[in-house]
Every structure is written in C-alpha cells, then in structure tokens.
C-alpha cells in the first residue's frame, strides 16, 4: 500500500513540477485572495490583523479546492481512471498517494501565504510549535477529505461546480479549528489552541481512515 502511495504521489508531484499549475495558477490565486482582503480591509488595519488567521485559512481552503480539482482532473482525462483500475495499485495506496501529493502542495502554499500575510498584514508569527502542528494536521485533513470528495465528483460532468459544494461545507470544522488555533498562537496563549488541534487531529484521522477503506468503492462508482 505504501509503495503504491509513493508511486502515485511521485507521479502527481512530477506532473505538477512539469506543468507548473500549482506555481503558476494556484499559488498566484491564493496570494491574490490575500491581496483582495487587504484592499477590502486596509482602512482598518486593526481588523485586518485580527482577521489574519481566518483570512489565511480561507485562502488555503479556496486553494485546496483548486488543488483537488486539478489532482482528479488528471485521472478523469483520456481513460486514466480505467488505467488506474487496471493497474493493480491498491485503492488505499492510490488514496494515500493522491492525498499525500495534495498535502505537500498545500504545505508549500501555506509557507508562501505565511510570508504573504507577514508582508501584507504586518503579522508577526509566534507560537511556532502550535502553528506548525496545526498546519500539519489541518493540511492532512483537508487533503484526505479533498481526495475523497475529489474522486466522488471525478466521474461527473459537473465536477468543477459540484466539488466546492461538497467539499467546503465538510471542511468547515478545519476552517474553524485551524483559525482558532492560529489565533491562540498569535495571541501568545497557546494553551487555548491545543484543544482545537485535537479537533483537527480527530478530523484528519477520521477522513484518512475513511479514505483508506472507502476509496476503492468510490473509484469504482465514480
């Protein structure tokens, strides 16, 4: 399973490396979201700084929709889904590989947006342990949920419009938990944030476990 996951993740990352979709489209989109929020809220710098955590994670969420759509558009093209089904790769391995590649792309975006927030919103990052832990578990949860709903929507003609409708409500707990945990870290009161990390971890574990078990059926039915 893990060999298959590494193979699929390596393939997806190689495709992104060659196509530059993440660097040329998803990353600029995420930065653009930050800039637009800065324009909208700039007259009140205090509001902008207080909303930093939420704006950061909203930008990540929107970018995650694009990353998931891209990851499964690759498999929807020109018979690749049938080729995957014929390949003998374990469905759990495919799920972990797709989710792993999406998670790595999101992690890179988070670093970029972290710098963007510091520059645009004058945010001083603090509470690094809580920030990093929150980012890791929230990213795993987003990638796992995204991969599940991505394969569910992949076989449908309306996948581009359906995926955000399925995905965004489901990951609302991630937005809430990650935002609260980041706020706690930025307020230098990390004790308040760890309970939210527990929520995020629970979300990630549930979706990874569900994905490992259910991805094969979803791949067959999509």
């Amino acid at each position, binding site marked *: 399973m893990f060999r*298959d996951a590494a*193979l699929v993740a390596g*393939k997806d990352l*190689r*495709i992104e490396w*060659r*196509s530059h979709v993440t660097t040329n489209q998803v990353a600029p989109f995420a930065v653009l979201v930050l800039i637009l929020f800065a324009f909208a809220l700039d007259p009140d710098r205090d509001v902008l700084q207080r909303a930093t955590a939420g704006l950061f994670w909203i930008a990540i969420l929107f970018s995650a929709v694009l990353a998931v759509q891209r990851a499964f558009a*690759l498999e929807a*093209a*020109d*018979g*690749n889904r*049938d*080729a995957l*089904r*014929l*390949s*003998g*790769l374990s469905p759990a391995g495919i799920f972990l590989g797709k989710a792993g590649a999406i998670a790595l792309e999101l992690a890179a975006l988070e670093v970029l947006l972290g710098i963007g927030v510091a520059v645009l919103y004058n945010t001083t990052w603090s509470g690094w342990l809580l920030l990093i832990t929150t980012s890791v578990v929230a990213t795993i949860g987003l990638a796992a949920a995204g991969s599940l709903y991505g394969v569910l929507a992949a076989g449908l003609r309306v996948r581009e419009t359906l995926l955000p409708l399925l995905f965004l409500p489901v990951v609302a707990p991630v937005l809430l938990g990650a935002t609260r945990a980041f706020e706690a870290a930025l307020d230098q009161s990390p004790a308040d944030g760890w309970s939210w990390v527990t929520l995020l971890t629970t979300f990630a574990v549930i979706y990874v476990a569900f994905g490992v078990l259910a991805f094969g059926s979803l791949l067959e039915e999509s």
Partner: protein
Amino acid sequence: MDPVAKDQVVRLRAAVSLLGRFPALAGVDLDVERGEVVLVRGPNGAGKTTLLRACAGLVPVVSGEATVLGCDLTQAADRTAVRRRVGLLGHTTGLYEDLTVTDNVRFWARACGATRAESDAALAALGLDGRLAGVVVAKLSAGQRRRTSIAALVARRSELWLLDEPHAGLDQAGRDVVDRLIRSAAAAGATVIVASHELDRAGAIADRTVTLAGGTVVVQPTSSVLASTSPHMRTDRRQNEGDGETEVLRVP
C-alpha cells in the same frame, strides 16, 4: 457450471453486461484458449468494446457465466483480481499529458509490478527509446500517443491482451510493429483478443474470427476449422519463437 479447461483463458456462456439499462452484451458465448489470437468483428454498437471491457473486469457480467483466467467475472472480487493480469488497449490513451513518454510507460509498468528494464525494453520494442523518450505526451501526434499506450501495455507482460482497434491512428510502420508484437505475444504464451474493423490486417494475424452483432456472437468457428484457413499464423509464431522481441513479451 461446467469445469473450465486448464488452457481455457476466456469462457463465456450466455454472458450479459449492461451499459445503463441497455444490454450491450446480450448473451455471449465465447471460448478462447491460451496462446490464441482471436479477432472480434462486427458493426458499430455490436458490443465489441463492451466484450473487451467485460473480459478486463471493468464492466460487470450481470448474468450467465463468465470466467477469465480462472476468475469469475460475475463476482466483484474476482473482477478486481483479473484486472492486474490483463492488458487493455482501449479507444483512450491512458496517458498523462504532462509526463514524458518514458515517465508514462515507467509509471504504468511499475504500477503493475514490472521493472524499469522491462519498461525500457517495451519502449525500445515500440521505437520510443530515441528522441521521443523525453518528449511530453501533450506534444505527441495521435499515432505517437498510440505507440506509447501500446508500450505501456507491452511492459505489463499481461497474460491476456485485449486490443480495441490497435491499428487506429498508426502509420504503416506502426501497424507492422503492432502486428509483430501481437504475434510475438502469442508466441510468448499470451492470449490476444483484437476488436477491429480492419479485417484484412487483423484477420491476417488472427487464428480465428468471431462475429458479434446486437451484443451476441453470430459466427464463431472452432479453432480446428480456422487452423486450416490461417496457416500463416502458425508459421509466423514459429519464426518469432526465440527472438529478442518474444523474450520481451514472455508471460511471467
């Protein structure tokens, strides 16, 4: 259910497969033995593609009997099991546009458990080991994409090859390569089912021809009858035995 003979790779009895509610296969009877090359012909909509997809385990057989490589295709678990033992060349390429020819073939080969040497040998067999090896698929012509798909298929070393219009989009040289590969695969112990409208070309490499119409087999001569009508096939196989290409294609 009658026992399946040891060398019987495909055994269908009144097999029915649905596309939606439409019975694309409406009671097919078919027997294919190990090492045979069978041409499936028939008009558009006859069920050729569905037959190949059903044999590959991609389309369920909802009634009748269907055994491929010993797997019962009416059972979901067996359909999954048979997939890794067959190679399907369909109408689509099954390639990633942003990967190179080599990356694509190596990925699908590794996914099926083949080694890098085996995928490189497949690339060479299709003439893709030269300047095309490092070209991304998006920049290839339709014929070059078809060659790449065939290379990915060859690298799998499947026991059963299911080829849907394998000559489509290929130039004369490419068609000759495909014919040679089919003969070599059969000589190496694989079984090949070819669905094609190119009856002269595909018929020349087939041991026998099965005609489908309306989702059922309407003509299915026995191997013994066909043996006398296509002696060139037997000769070609003997000629191929022991050559390098046959070794590339030998079924593990």
